[in-house]
């Protein structure tokens, strides 16, 4: 596999997963930016465990997931049903605190960063395949879980909360528990993705987890469509890949292009390109086609 294709696919998978990590809490109107801090914490922890404590990568990854989940759960006890802006402030606070802690810990590289994470599997080729397999395995697993969530009573409850929190509460939906569930899931996912993100580069640096990541994941989520999980899945590779083919002069304006695209989408298609209606009609069209095929076969018989 060409190396550039590997990096494209792996970073696309990270963007998909992290956009989903924002998508799930956003189903209950929460912008859960603490996921960036989770990436950092779990990533650095796993890097330290592998590099210095010689813990096998798979255990470090599982620990990364677990730490993300524990942090998400503890924080959700306080902000499970908090207003949106409180959740935003929690996110910013956690990012600042985490950055400051990492800066001041020479044992995990401090401001210099963490270098030389080993190849999993002993050689670069095997390392890349393992990372890709784990990433896309995670995409499939999370895609399945989120699909089941969206099509369950919990998902419908989340939709009700999104439309009208107070009405949802009066209908008996436990907003806090729902908030805790989505936040814990999102943080667990972010923890694991943070570990994988660092192992893609085989190093960690504070600037890998800056506020710019919020911009990337938000763009993928809102341009793709925040009402279904399919939006980020389709948009992430396009938004990340297409600018790589622009001429250098145009590439230098890519942030402006992203910003304009986001504004256009919010104005003209507020729900994003892939909406629930689109997905539903797609499903209907395939089922109509299938029904027609069955009908015509029966007629032939």
């Amino acid at each position: 596999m060409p190396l550039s294709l590997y990096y494209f696919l792996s970073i696309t998978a990270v963007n998909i997963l992290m956009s989903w990590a924002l998508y799930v809490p956003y189903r209950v109107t929460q912008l859960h930016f603490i996921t960036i801090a989770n990436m950092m914490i779990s990533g650095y922890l796993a890097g330290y465990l592998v590099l210095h404590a010689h813990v096998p990568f798979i255990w470090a990854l599982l620990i990364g997931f677990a730490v993300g989940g524990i942090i998400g759960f503890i924080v959700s006890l306080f902000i499970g049903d908090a207003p949106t802006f409180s959740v935003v402030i929690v996110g910013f606070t956690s990012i600042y605190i985490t950055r400051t802690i990492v800066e001041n810990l020479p044992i995990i590289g401090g401001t210099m960063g963490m270098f030389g994470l080993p190849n999993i599997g002993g050689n670069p080729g095997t390392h890349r395949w393992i990372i890709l397999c784990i990433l896309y395995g995670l995409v499939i697993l999370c895609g399945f879980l989120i699909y089941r969530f969206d099509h369950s009573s919990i998902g419908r409850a989340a939709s009700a909360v999104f439309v009208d929190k107070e009405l949802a509460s009066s209908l008996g939906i436990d907003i806090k528990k729902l908030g805790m569930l989505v936040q814990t899931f999102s943080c667990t996912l972010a923890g694991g993705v943070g570990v994988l993100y660092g192992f893609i580069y085989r190093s960690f640096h504070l600037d890998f987890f800056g506020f710019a990541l919020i911009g990337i994941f938000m763009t993928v989520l809102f341009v793709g469509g925040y009402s279904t999980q399919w939006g980020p899945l389709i948009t992430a590779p396009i938004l990340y890949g297409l600018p790589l083919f622009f001429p250098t002069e145009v590439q230098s304006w890519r942030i402006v292009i992203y910003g304009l695209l986001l504004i256009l989408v919010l104005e003209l298609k507020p729900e994003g390109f892939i909406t629930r209606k689109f997905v539903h009609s797609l499903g209907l069209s395939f089922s109509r086609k299938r029904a027609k095929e069955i009908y015509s076969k029966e007629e032939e018989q």
Partner: protein
Amino acid sequence: MKRQIVALLLILVAVSFGFSQTKVVVNEWRIPFLNCLTGPIAAIGEFLQWGANYAANEINAAGGIAGKPVRVIPVDTGNDPQKGSVEMARIVKDSLVAMGPVPEPVILAAMPIAVENQMMSITATTSYEYAVQFFPWTVSWFPPTLDRLPALVIGWAKQFSDLKQVVQFIEPYGPWPGMAEAHSKALAGLNIKELKAIEVPTDAVTFGPLVVRALDQKPDGIILVCNAEKAAKIIKELKSRGWTKMNHILVFSSADDAQLYSTGGADLNGVQVYNYLNLEVSNPRWDKFKAAFAKDHNGQMPFSLSPNYYDALYMIKEAIEKTGVTGDPKKLKEERKKIADYCANVKGFQGLLYEWDMKDGVPTNKPSYIFEIQNGVKQFVLEVRP
């Protein structure tokens, strides 16, 4: 609707396919330069790019490298590690050698790819502590921090007999805390008391509290280890609080760039700075470089890092010509190694300002200087050689 799906799928396939494309050019030397042309340090990226392009034009005017023209291909990473890694992955497919990346987060993301593919990428603006992680597939433009900086601080401090206690302002970024440690080593060696360091937050916009805290300790001297804009603002704040001994302020090399002068203005008069670029040196190449730079930059003189990639391209030229590299794609691996080996141990490399040697990727005899700023111009004070 189906058409939309097909269109989306086609786009995805095109994007994937695009990454597998290879282009082999044999009529010219194409040297990719992973640089930061957009984003927060775009201004510095532009100076570096200018230096590389100028070198390419000069080399081509003199007949090219081994008779073939050279082209520097700008690759903007925008200070984005994601982009940097994808671009490096594209470059390693068929490039003989590369320059950059810039800056450190992108180096960490992208250099492991160059190392894995055994392709040299010259990181001419980062510290030894970063570059050494990727030896032998890069070289360091600077000796180890703990070896090179103490002599500079000693040179500065020895000018002033009244320097008994010094405070450092330190911004927590990359190798800068390590550089501050090297300064501390020097001060300890001179029995100058180092007062409690002042940490400068990366997003600080005002500096009153930090300056008051520093001045409350009654320092005789101040060393600034923070970015150029912050350094300039701290100097202005110091002045407004009554600091008068401007030459008792030393600015470290990483802050010596255009932002220092554009923000500090006349308030910098008397401040001393250490660096590796001496504008007062005169030789035909350097004089031409300075004149051309000033012409293209509204009369501004070159900043400290401007010649780095000029020299890097000339080093690549020398490596290609002296080792007989042909650019034949079939010999890519072998010729990449030749270039890397040559650069790591080049002797008597004639840089733009001075001649130096490399030993195992580390320069052994580069001079550094202390200057005093007067009216936006650095005036030579002292040369320090290892």
